[in-house]
């Protein structure tokens, strides 16, 4: 009887379920949010790794899902935004199966069993399964191409998979380039965007910076032909301005609206701020006990430096506080020849070898920036250098003593951004940013200063409901484990800055996202 009654109740209820709760002002109905003057039905995002959602040293699915363009598209969807597609990788491992050495898996944060952090390491719980040789045969709204510099967006063949191994093409673009000859900008324009974002130019200085300034600064060389540029060079300011102007001119054709972002101070990213210039602690059992011997040896050199009129190059390690590393500064005059003569009475036949090692050496100062990757080499024995010295007739023991990186063997250029290199970077950045701001203004486009945003993160940090986002490596929440690219939370901040700019320029009104809902770095001990 009761079972039968339930049926009647169900029938009776059917008519009643219809009166479900409804808000006085439901946000999902039109009117609460508005796109203002914008048509967001087909948003195309152009840029580099930042736009693609590259993080932790790799491109992987959840990073892409948390890219600022994808976050924006979710907010846009509340007022007229169209579908937003991305060339998602095949996995959350990252890297390419075709060449996992050059394009390895993502970093994860490794911890000791007691919960103390060890540091980032490449994830090995799975292997890269994405192949750049497989073209997805479709166009995508997110056209961010990791590694792309300004001029790459107009370079034919940049998406030719066959050129990747030669370094002539980009594997990320190869996955969705419409043909082997096409350009990024052509494929973007072919989608007839109704709205675009462009954030390009970071890599025009970044790869110079991350490589410790080993490349060339074409503002110095005056080389205006980007096809001859090396991968670690700084793009000439005029080349950047000309290409940037062409890109924007093409994008705004037909009254298309968009937003431009400028270039942040890349050297305030944790990649450049984490390793201190003076990391050598006297408490380090591998270093501290050696200090008297080291200082005795360097004392001989310091006498020669003084005699040669360069006493500022003196090297001495403190027994009480952490000492700066020894670096090779290519901006210094090479005094190898004079030094050889000066130290021959002390070092005898070894003098030429020793002099060559310290011809441009000095101790680092607080003005030098050590790159993140230097942390794993400082204090390590350079076995190649040992072999080399032994080949030059140095005893095995002596060769070993002379080959401790950053202590006896000056850190190579690639690990240090010396002040002159930093100046080259910031000069180019200032010029690029002036170009971007002027072009935004000339075209009436929305503009976001990523420089201002990052300086807030790197300064006091940006508060959110669960703390403060800072640029502190691994724990600050703003930067992923590669020290360069933002975390999802960092992308959320960028998305909010863009939404604000769209409100200001186009009268749009969208809800912000809550940075606290976005993650930071991923912990895993699935590493080798």
């Amino acid at each position: 009887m009761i079972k039968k009654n339930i049926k009647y109740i169900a029938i009776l209820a059917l008519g009643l379920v219809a009166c479900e709760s409804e808000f006085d002002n439901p946000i999902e109905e039109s009117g609460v949010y508005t796109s203002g003057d914008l048509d967001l039905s087909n948003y195309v995002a152009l840029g580099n790794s930042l736009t693609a959602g590259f993080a932790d040293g790799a491109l992987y699915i959840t990073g892409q899902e948390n890219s600022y363009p994808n976050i924006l598209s979710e907010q846009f969807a509340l007022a007229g935004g169209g579908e937003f597609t991305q060339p998602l990788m095949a996995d959350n491992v990252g890297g390419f199966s075709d060449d996992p050495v050059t394009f390895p898996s993502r970093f994860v944060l490794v911890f000791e069993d007691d919960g103390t952090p060890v540091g980032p390491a490449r994830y090995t719980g799975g292997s890269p399964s994405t192949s750049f040789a497989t073209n997805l045969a479709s166009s995508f709204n997110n056209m961010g191409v990791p590694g792309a510099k300004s001029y790459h967006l107009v370079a034919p063949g940049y998406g030719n998979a066959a050129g990747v191994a030669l370094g002539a093409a980009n594997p990320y673009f190869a996955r969705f380039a419409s043909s082997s000859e096409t350009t990024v900008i052509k494929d973007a324009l072919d989608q007839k965007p109704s709205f675009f974002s462009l954030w390009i130019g970071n890599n025009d200085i970044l790869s110079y910076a991350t490589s410790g300034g080993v490349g060339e600064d074409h503002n110095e060389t005056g080389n205006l032909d980007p096809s001859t540029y090396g991968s670690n060079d700084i793009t000439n300011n005029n080349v950047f301005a000309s290409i940037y102007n062409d890109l924007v001119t093409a994008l705004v054709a037909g009254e298309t609206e968009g937003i431009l972002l400028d270039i942040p101070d890349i050297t305030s990213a944790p990649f450049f701020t984490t390793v201190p210039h003076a990391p050598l602690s006297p408490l380090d059992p591998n270093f501290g006990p050696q200090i008297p011997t080291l200082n005795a040896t360097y004392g001989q050199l310091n006498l020669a430096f003084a005699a040669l009129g360069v006493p500022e190059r003196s090297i001495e390690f403190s027994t009480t506080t952490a000492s700066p590393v020894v670096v090779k500064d290519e901006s210094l005059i090479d005094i190898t020849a004079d030094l050889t003569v000066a130290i021959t009475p002390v070092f005898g036949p070894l003098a030429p070898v020793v002099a060559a090692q310290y011809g441009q050496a000095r101790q680092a100062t607080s003005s030098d920036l050590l790159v993140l990757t230097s942390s794993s080499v400082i204090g390590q024995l350079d076995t190649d250098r040992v072999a080399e010295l032994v080949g030059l007739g140095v005893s095995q023991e002596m060769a070993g003593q002379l080959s401790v990186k950053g202590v006896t063997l000056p850190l190579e250029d690639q690990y240090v951004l010396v002040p002159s290199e930093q100046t080259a970077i910031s000069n180019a950045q200032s010029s690029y940013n002036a170009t971007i701001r002027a072009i935004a203004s000339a075209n009436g486009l929305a503009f976001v200063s990523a420089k201002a945003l990052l300086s807030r993160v790197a300064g006091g940090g940006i508060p959110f409901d669960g703390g403060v986002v800072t640029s502190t490596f691994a724990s600050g929440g703003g930067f992923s484990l590669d020290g360069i690219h933002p975390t999802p939370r960092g992308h959320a901040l960028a998305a909010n800055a863009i939404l604000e700019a769209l409100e200001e320029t186009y009268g749009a009104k969208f809800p912000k996202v809550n940075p606290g809902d976005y993650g930071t770095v991923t912990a895993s001990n699935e590493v080798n």
Partner: protein
Amino acid sequence: MRKLLLLVLFVLVATVTYAGGYRVSVQGQRAIAMGHTGVAVVNSAELVFFNPAGLVYLENKLNVSVGVTGIFSDVIYQNEEFGVAAETDSSMGTPLNLYGSYKVNDWMSVGLGVYTPYGSEVRWPTDWAGSHLVNEIELAAIYVQPVVSFKLSEHFSVGGGPIYVRGSVNFNRNLNRTLSDIEGNRSNVTIDDSGVSNWGWSVGAMFNPTKNFRLGFNYRSKIIMEVEGGDATFANVPNSPAVGLTNGSTSFDAKLPLPAELTVGLSYEYQKWLFAFDYNRQFWGVYKSLDIDFASTPTGPDSVNPRNYQDSSVYRFGLQYQATEKITLRAGYYRDESPVQEGFFAPETPRNDSDGYTGGVSFAISPKLAIDASFFYLRFEEVDASYDFYQENGQNVPFGGTYKSSIIAPGLGLTYKL
């Protein structure tokens, strides 16, 4: 008595689920129809719940009331600042109530009741904006209560009895707002236990100054449901010592109070009309915090969730009209004050002050058997509320927005007299 036993057997095999808040007032079809009043109404065996003292004034030797209520609840949430919205999956709950009383002699009746005064079923979309507080919860508590009622005079009676409670809980939430495994799957925990039992009691009194006027009093004790060694299952936890947890099962201990409730009320009969008023005081103050202690972490509770409920009141009004020989009409209203305080509005029990509108009809098929239909609509005001005591890195992180909910509950029952 054999029929009562059959009824008890029936309830043991029936699956019972609940909806709405955590205290669900659906303890009798006739009472529901009258705003869930009944402490001073002598009408049916529903008195086992409402006031066992009144059983002895029932005219018949044997009284049986059974009923089932279909509860459709719907909760919507939105946050305009962040553009997020969510709605609970409104599944149907069907709590049952079964009561019987037997007049042993002129001054004593005995009875038995099986009813479900507490329960909750709320299912938010998995990984919704408040998933760090709750994805879904299902609470059920079934009360089994034998009672005895003594008539001290035509004017005064007392009654009461022990309560045996059997309950179950299933609760899932994400570990925090962002933690996920390498694939981006959100780390979460499910706690589950059933067969949790404990004892309580109730006592009532009824005073009839005149033939038409009754006053009632009823008190039901609090019962603390103590889970010991329930199953806690962690999922999608990243493989890292940094988390301090690993995927898989551990056990947990927790306590959930089923608060005490005091009811005083009156009824007045005038010709074909009956008016009733009940005042409930629900002693929710006992619910200070929901603390879950996982066995895998030996020291201290691992999930501390302040609730800080306060004692609350419900004002109930009911009216009955004997329309014809066979048909009785009923209507009611009640004002239910929420025990949830400002800043403690958790989406697992999204209850603010509400107004209940009720109605119903009884149709007497024969002098012995009647069908009782009831209906109530519980309307919660739209409310901007937040839960401010969720912590991340030692800092309170409020979760708030606008909530609105409603409950619709049609019910059907039978009353049998012999």
